[in-house]
């Protein structure tokens, strides 16, 4: 028997609730259009909400994202669906798309949850915390992270043992294991694709030893260690909890690398690594930090000055490609690299290595579009039909692309691109109305 | 920490206060005994406020003026200058060293110049 589907109407659907999707949605909503944001995760805010501080001003990332997220979540013209998937989008006519959406159960009645965390305390199951990039554990009944929006609990049903401890602990009786997925049919006039990017998985480069050596981290894990909502209160290396004093950054991990199928530059890694180096110098004044790079791409407003500032603070920059990382004594690591300035192969010991992982295309949106093909470029980014004159235009009329779904971008560029997408979508809505 | 002079700064919301903010952002340190009150424009400072600050125990008053960047009027530099000379007269009447009031134009990115000015003013006041 076919389940009953709930039918809703909006002017625009924004797929992805990261900073780009949020910005596009806000702009459209401020122009008076009704917008739905569909986010697959438990919280909106995307990757930016997880960051520590942002270059080149060192503003805290949360100080920019949380008020935006807050503005989005209470805007009268914006409806947010978290933990939801877009199953299909079909163009029904000149000014009409129909999307089918499934809202996965959270097993918590959102309206009643107060975010008190009693369920979290009671839950006996501990699993890796993906929001802290597996640095620490979390419970199966949990609030994703302290500045999540909505800040309410969820049950990780795959890991839940159905012991019922959370149900007993919850003061507002909001845990409901009988929740089912809800299906929606959404009628809209335009779509903004803001599905963001994926991070390169460093397990693919075996010689870097990620996953094998505990003290090889990704830059996102370091980002979490530096964030205000950090899991530990200081910087620790995972093997023994020691505060590291010789830290290496390996740039272009998975970028500018044909053998990994990603020939292009990720555009952000140089700068976020320089930023992390500056923050580490602040947190651990005695630490030596070395950045191994191919070229430093400090191209944006104030970026080159920020790079010079890091040099001035004593961050070492070595132009060289890393051959292999091997394990030394007591958890230390040895980096074998070609020092370009001398042309010699050298080795250096570090007690922690951060892989500055690159940006990859997220083409999840492509199969959603059933009636018309959403074209991608050779690197699987959403294809911009007219990148110079109409940057948000895609292969489907009425579908616009916002932020890093169309290619690597830093935060300022994503926000401008999101503004551009909103502006083009507004013009489109105005025209078809 | 050695003793520092107590300085009141009158800044302006759009021009000099952003420069003072940027000094913080860039961690250009200066004495924490420097306090800022942001106004709309440096030509709106009443001499009685400055005198009041001295009477309440401030060692120095620094006007971080809009200068030629003022969005309200070209006449800002001249008007702020008039306020300073008028206040100098009042200070003389009250036997306050006129050099305890200083003015400099601080543009919206003149963070370094602000810190330099404040440091030299602080040194003068400590003497």
């Amino acid at each position: 028997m076919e389940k009953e589907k709930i039918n809703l109407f909006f002017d625009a659907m924004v797929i992805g609730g990261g900073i780009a999707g949020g910005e596009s949605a806000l702009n459209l909503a401020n122009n008076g259009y009704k917008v739905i944001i569909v986010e697959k995760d438990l919280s909106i805010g995307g990757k930016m909400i997880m960051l520590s501080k942002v270059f080149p001003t060192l503003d805290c990332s949360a100080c920019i994202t949380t008020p935006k997220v807050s503005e989005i979540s209470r805007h009268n013209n914006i409806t947010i669906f978290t933990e939801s998937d877009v199953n299909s989008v079909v163009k029904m006519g000149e000014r009409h798309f129909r999307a089918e959406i499934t809202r996965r159960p959270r097993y918590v009645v959102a309206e009643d949850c107060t975010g008190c965390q009693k369920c979290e305390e009671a839950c006996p199951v501990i699993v890796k915390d993906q929001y802290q990039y597996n640095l620490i554990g979390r419970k199966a009944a949990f609030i994703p992270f302290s500045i999540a929006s909505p800040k309410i609990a969820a049950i990780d049903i795959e890991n839940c043992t159905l012991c019922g401890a959370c149900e007993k602990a919850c003061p507002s009786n909001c845990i409901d294991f009988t929740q089912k997925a809800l299906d929606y049919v959404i009628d809209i006039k335009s779509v903004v694709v803001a599905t963001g990017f994926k991070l390169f998985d460093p397990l693919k480069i075996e010689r870097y030893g990620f996953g094998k050596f505990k003290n090889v981290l990704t830059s996102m894990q370091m980002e979490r260690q530096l964030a205000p909502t950090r899991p530990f209160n200081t910087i620790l290396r995972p093997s023994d909890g020691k505060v590291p004093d010789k830290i290496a950054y390996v740039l272009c991990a998975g970028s500018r690398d044909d053998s990994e199928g990603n020939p292009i530059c990720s555009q952000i890694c140089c700068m976020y690594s320089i930023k992390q180096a500056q923050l580490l110098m602040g947190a651990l004044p005695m630490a030596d930090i070395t950045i191994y790079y191919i070229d430093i791409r400090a191209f944006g407003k104030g970026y080159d000055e920020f790079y010079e500032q890091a040099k001035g603070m004593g961050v070492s920059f070595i132009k060289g490609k890393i051959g292999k990382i091997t394990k030394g004594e007591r958890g230390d690591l040895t980096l074998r690299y070609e020092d370009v300035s001398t042309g010699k192969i050298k080795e250096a010991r570090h007690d922690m290595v951060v892989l500055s992982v690159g940006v990859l295309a997220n083409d999840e949106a492509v199969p959603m579009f059933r009636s018309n093909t959403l074209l991608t470029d050779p690197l699987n980014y959403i294809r911009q039909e007219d990148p110079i004159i109409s940057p948000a235009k895609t292969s489907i009329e009425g579908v616009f692309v916002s932020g890093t779904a169309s290619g690597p971008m830093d935060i300022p560029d994503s926000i401008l691109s999101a503004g551009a997408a909103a502006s083009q979508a507004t013009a489109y809505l105005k025209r078809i109305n | 920490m050695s003793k520092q002079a107590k300085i009141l700064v009158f800044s302006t919301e759009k021009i000099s206060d952003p420069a003072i903010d940027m000094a913080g952002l860039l961690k250009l340190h200066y004495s924490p005994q420097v306090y800022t009150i942001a106004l709309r424009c440096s030509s709106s400072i009443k001499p009685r406020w400055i005198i009041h600050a001295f009477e309440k125990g401030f060692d120095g008053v620094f006007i971080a003026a809009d200068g030629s960047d003022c969005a309200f009027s070209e006449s800002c530099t001249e008007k702020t200058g008039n306020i300073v000379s008028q206040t100098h007269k009042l200070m003389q009447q009250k036997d306050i060293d006129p050099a305890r009031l200083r003015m400099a134009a601080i543009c919206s990115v003149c963070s370094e110049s602000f810190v330099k000015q404040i440091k030299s003013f602080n040194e003068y006041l400590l003497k």
Partner: protein
Amino acid sequence: MEKRIGVYICACGGNISDYVDIEKVKESITGENAVLLAKTTMFACGDANQKDMDSDIRKNDLNGIVVASCSPKLHLSTFRAVSERAGLNKYNYVHANIREQASWAHSDDKPGATEKAILLVKAAIAKARHASSLEPIKIKSKKSVAVIGAGIAGIKAAQALSAMGDKVYLIEKESKIGGNLLNINRVNPESETGEEIVKRLSKEIENEENITLLTGHRITSGSGNIGDFVLTLKGNNNPGEDNFPEKEINVGSVLVATGFESYSPLTGEYGYGQLPGVVTLAQFNKLLKGQNGMSFVAFGKEVKSVAFIYCVGSREIKGDNKYCSRYCCSAAIQSALDLSERFPDSDIYHLTRGVRSYGKQELLYKEANRRGDLFIQFPDKEPPVIEEKDDKIIIKVKDILSGKRELEAETDIVVLVTGMVPVQDDNTGSIFKLPRGRDKFYNEIHMKLRPVETAIDGVTIAGACQGPKNASESVNSALAAAAKSHSLVSTGELELEPIVAYVDEDKCTWCDECSKACPFNAISVIEMFQKSIARINKSTCKGCGMCLPVCPTDAIELISFTNKEIEDMIDVLSQ
């Protein structure tokens, strides 16, 4: 009315609490006159705290709020909005900046930073005690926008505004539109020429009824404010043509897209202006475009080798241009690709300081490598040396990529890859008093929160006048700026801060000093209580306060900057 104030002290996730002891701040203000509650919070701007403030205001009937956090430029409006949602007039909100002006400025002196923060919060509380409910001034806004500069950013902004339904004046000082794009042979990533793009752009706007295109016009003056700017334009005096009369336009917002200029090398900089064959990138593009024959002929000889020297006028060690010009690495590579396509046997050298072909532009760099271009990276402080020897140019350069070996090469043309600099004779900035950044380009309010707005309400910035950008980045910023300007004018009504001056009628003895000081003609004289007194026109008063200090009887005050407020703050800060 008795004041009931709530105070929130933000940790800013450590940005404040790492240097300022916020618990101590809280303790020292607890019990202050009129302070009903004081709290610390991890992120004052976060959703959780906003909800908390909302319920505190309602539950405790608070009528004054102070948040001590970052600069008011970032979040004053955030917290005003919280007050308003909780039913409290937003002018009862006072902001204390204990981040930029305490924790960060004094991160070297934690006790000092804490003491300062305490006084700053107390001063804000003193101000909040006087705060009262105010109604914003509502004005009609002109539903039109002036876009200044018709390069790619200006044209796209105009087109977007028009498509969103606004009336647009597109003003260009040159006689044709297109700006710097006209000097670019090919614009990556598509192989379209700058001229072709301009052609498409002009097609996009030519039939737009909403757009009035004014080429050959300069702005000579501007006045007014958000919602109601008046711009005076003057036509260029072309010989043989009638002088254009002066023209006035009236708009609600101004979108500045005045672009950039290429850095012009100093005479002698890498032999520029002294050796024939040393040209800028724009000059080289023109040379290449003009080639019709089978071989590349320039400066009276066949050109077989070309050397590009990067970062000329950018990333300067000694000069003022410390910034990276962003577009030039890829632009130079694109020109080199154009060259090798036209004349495949050319020897091409790239003398760089590290190639910055970020993002997908990396593919261009790869292609140039594949075609056999030679990339050399010279040390930052040891730039190449150019000499002339028998009609040939000799370049000596140290190469980091080969152990700082000194290389010597002969070349026919040296291309100076010049960066972007602000337009030298752009008077828009001085007319509207737009602040410039450390790089001398126009400055946005906040790169991430308000990237296209300036400190001057109603004036937005787009494209390379804000900082170096390539064509598609300029368009993104232009469309974003158009969205912002549109949001200012689209409803036809704007709210302005009710910060205006007012007169104490008892004290006023009408001497005319205030009206002479007022730059906006907002003060007139009226007869009241059998005497002449000053009257302030609320809708023309901009709240600058220039009338305050000139009044001999101290009869004028400015809302929210009254003697009481300022002097109470001074009292607190002097403690």
